[in-house]
């Protein structure tokens, strides 16, 4: 196993093409534990962190470009970002612990394609797009188009994510993310819920609800979104959204939680997220 740290996208691209069995990595907080657990060793470990664009964060022209290898600690510590996307920032800040967050990246969280990845529901709720380096050049895709199943992505051989793009949060809009874990940190989401709401006074003008860890991939809950739009967040509406969220789940029984538990709590987190996001959308996030 060889370690290489290219300094440009082109250099990384040709390393991947020239070396079958090579793998990119950012924080390696997924990759190294997986290798230790017996997954095949890459021929070449391609470190993306020396490529400027992959660790830079820029905000201009009504949108954000966030390098795919940027440590999540750099995002949660960026006040402009954290204020505009409080839910996405919180989701990123839940990954592991301080030590993990000094290394963990969105690129790794998305490409690892764990159904429980914390940044994913919040990224999808915020319509995050990715710019992908391909053999021929670059292409773009939405985050939910990248993840196709547990550990499965639509990224082709030699492709890697360069950056994430996000449009500025519009007025009257905000987001929230909550997860349930048995402990308070260093744990994997049993259920995660990401929500983005646009409020028109007390009325929901637009809603996106995305659940994690309750299906093979993060799922969008269209029924719950439909139940909200045009309504105020009264108890009946919240209950309807929660019920729709529970119904949308397609979870498994495993050591981290049962099917029944995940279903029930998905509704609870959805409801709680809606209230937080609505409050932020109406009253600002500070």
């Amino acid at each position: 196993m060889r370690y290489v740290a290219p300094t440009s996208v082109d250099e990384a691209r040709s390393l991947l093409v020239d070396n079958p069995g090579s793998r990119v990595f950012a924080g390696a907080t997924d990759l190294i534990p997986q290798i230790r657990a017996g997954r095949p060793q890459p021929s070449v470990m391609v470190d993306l962190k020396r490529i400027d664009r992959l660790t830079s964060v820029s905000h201009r022209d009504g949108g954000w470009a966030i390098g795919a290898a940027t440590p999540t600690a750099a995002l949660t510590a960026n006040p402009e970002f954290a204020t505009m996307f409080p839910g996405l920032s919180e989701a990123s800040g839940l990954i592991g612990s301080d030590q993990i967050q000094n290394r963990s990246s969105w690129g790794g969280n998305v490409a690892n394609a764990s159904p429980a990845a914390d940044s994913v529901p919040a990224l999808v709720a915020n319509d995050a797009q990715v710019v992908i380096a391909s053999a021929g050049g670059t292409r773009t895709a939405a985050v939910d188009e990248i993840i196709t199943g547990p550990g499965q992505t639509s990224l082709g051989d030699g492709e890697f994510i360069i950056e994430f793009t996000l449009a500025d949060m519009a007025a009257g809009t905000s987001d929230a993310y909550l997860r349930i874990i048995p402990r308070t940190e260093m744990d994997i989401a049993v259920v995660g819920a990401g929500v983005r709401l646009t409020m028109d006074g007390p009325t929901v003008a637009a809603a996106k609800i995305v659940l994690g860890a309750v299906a093979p991939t993060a799922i969008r809950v269209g029924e719950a979104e439909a139940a909200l739009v045009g309504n105020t967040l009264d108890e009946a509406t919240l209950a309807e959204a929660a019920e729709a969220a529970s119904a949308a789940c397609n979870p498994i029984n495993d050591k981290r939680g049962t099917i029944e538990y995940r279903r029930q709590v998905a509704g609870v987190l959805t409801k709680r997220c809606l209230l937080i996001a609505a409050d932020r959308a109406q009253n600002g996030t500070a």
Partner: protein
Amino acid sequence: MTATENPPTYTWVGTRPIRHDGYDKVTGKARFAADLDLPGQLRAVYVRSPHAHARIVSINTAAAEAMPGVKAVVTGADFPDLGAADPEYDVSVNVMARDTVYYHGHAVAAVAATSRELAADAAAAIVVEYEELPAVFTIDDAMADGAPLVNETNFTKFVKADEPSNLSTITNLERGEVDDAFAAADLVVEREFTTAAVHQGYIEPHACVVDTGADGRASVWCSSQGHFRVRSSTAAVLGWDVSRVKVTPAEIGGGFGGKTTIYIEPVAARLSEMAGRPVKIVMTRDEVFRATGPAPASKVRVKVGATNDGELTALEAWMAYNVGAFGNVAGLVGAMSVASYKFPNLKLEAYSVLSNLPKSAAYRSPSAPHAAFAIESVVDEIAQKLDIDPIELRLKNAAVEGDVTAMGMPHPRIGFVECLEAVRESEHYQSPVPDGAARGIAAGFWFNIGEQSSATVHVNEDGTATVITGSPDIGGSRASMALMAAEELGLDVNSITPLVADTESVGFTDTTEGSRTTFATGMAVVQACRDLIDDMRSRAATTLSVDVGEVIWADGAAVAEGHDPVPLASIAAQSKRTGGPLTASASLNAAGAGPSFAVHCGDLAVDEETGHTKVLRYTAAQDAGTAIHPSYVEGQLQGGSVQGIGWALNEEYVLNDDGSLDNASFLDYRIPVASDLPMIETIIVEVPNPSHPYGVRGVGETGIVPPMATIANAISRAAGIRMTALPMSPPHVLTALNER
């Protein structure tokens, strides 16, 4: 050696100096077993069973032996058959399977190679052919009629047994007439409780380096709670005399009972003997979870009778402990741990039950937490039903000196009542329960043990001193040894160097277990110091030309009336002229280990929509007899509390259908993380143990006994649900809430 109820004020005992090993620990210089590397050393890797129960048909190591870097391979055939009657037989078979594997992860072979990677490659090339046998994993399945036999060498102890069985021990204890008492009781509460297997979770995996020389003698460096036991077990498994094995204790990164037995040392010794090079074994975390002793799972049925005014009149309990594939006395010890309340009528039936799981090992007050979870939950339910304050109910029934335990042993002077009173008077208990939360109370008992200890104390030529014991220091005991020596000799504690010596440099000393070290090894240190003082008094008497009877020892000096005091330093400086070096050793078998009681108080809130519990405030009160170093006593109280809360809330062995462990990592075996818990508040109660010169009672274990019921009792009061199964994890709590 007596202590008074109103102890004199001590100069050193009860102070909080920085521990002698502290600087090395915080600067990363302390040497743990895995830190040691010897020239030419090999690394060894295991082959482990992929079946929970199987006959080994054949093992082919030829391909592995031919691989690059491989220097030795061992299987069960390389170890003697001790015969099932040998006390170390189970250990020897657990260390390396012979013709049968008894649990998933049981060691089958090991390879020593020039690197860990090469050893792992070679281990993967060993071909083992198995014939699967039926396996059982639960108490119910193992006790069922016609259950497959777990281990054909197990015969039930304490009863006449002609046939092998899945029961390792059966214990029946009875006093009074429980049936009459239940009939006469105003209130009877009966419930069944279960607890999951839990691991001690020590942060340092088992590790050793062994160098077997051309003379056939093995030098062992390892992490253990008792290097003399490592010596005897290693020698036994190899069929050697103990004199062929020298064990040097490394610093130990936690044990909690789990390092009172051995797993790897004989394997490394044999590989080293075969290869002629030192061999190092460091278990992975995965191996620690799969193949070292957890504490047993359990099932306990409890029935308690009470009068309307809260007198507990009868206890009947049926207790079963799932001890894994080799017998042990968990059931007996569980029955012995029933000792907190007077219960004039009592009937206990306790079992140690075998299953095809790893051999269970000691874990802080082994077997007591399971029993206390059940009994303290039912006692609390009685307090709720009778609307009596839970502390008052316990005070009314608490055992005092002279009351007998379930075993029929009268309690010596104990501090249970004092612990209850301490919690009742505490700021915590006196303050209102936070909004949306509830408060739980529970008690715990552990008997503690004495056993054999040795100590050697040298007064150095400049008047400093060295205190040498054979007790691995797992909770700050070196500091406590130094404090007791400082008190005796009248020296500054920082002039004393406390050490833990290897098996050839100090007298035999039993394992650090049963909360015995500060008690028993402390006694040996005190005895050695007193012998030294006698020697120094007599030398001073000679120098001063007075009778030794006229010389007393005070403030670090020999004092005779009419003479200037002769300080220790000048006696030390003169020692060459007065009879040679000043040194004394003491060895003893300590009797009179005083039991330690604890009472815990916890406030918690339940998120009724998710089943998540949050501990808001937690206080642990415990009788330390005398706290030699209060900080380390507090550390024990806090550590026990935290481990017990983890056991209560989230820790559990999750098994796959084939008996393999599904959560063999700290990610999914959920011990508490720091942010889960508030600071654990402590109250040290001091009811001196009359059998110890400073009144010490061991404090290392009792702290883990009350938390499960403390949490369950708080959940009951918070949410109206009586949790009877551990862990009380969010899914289980939510299910109970849904069923409410």
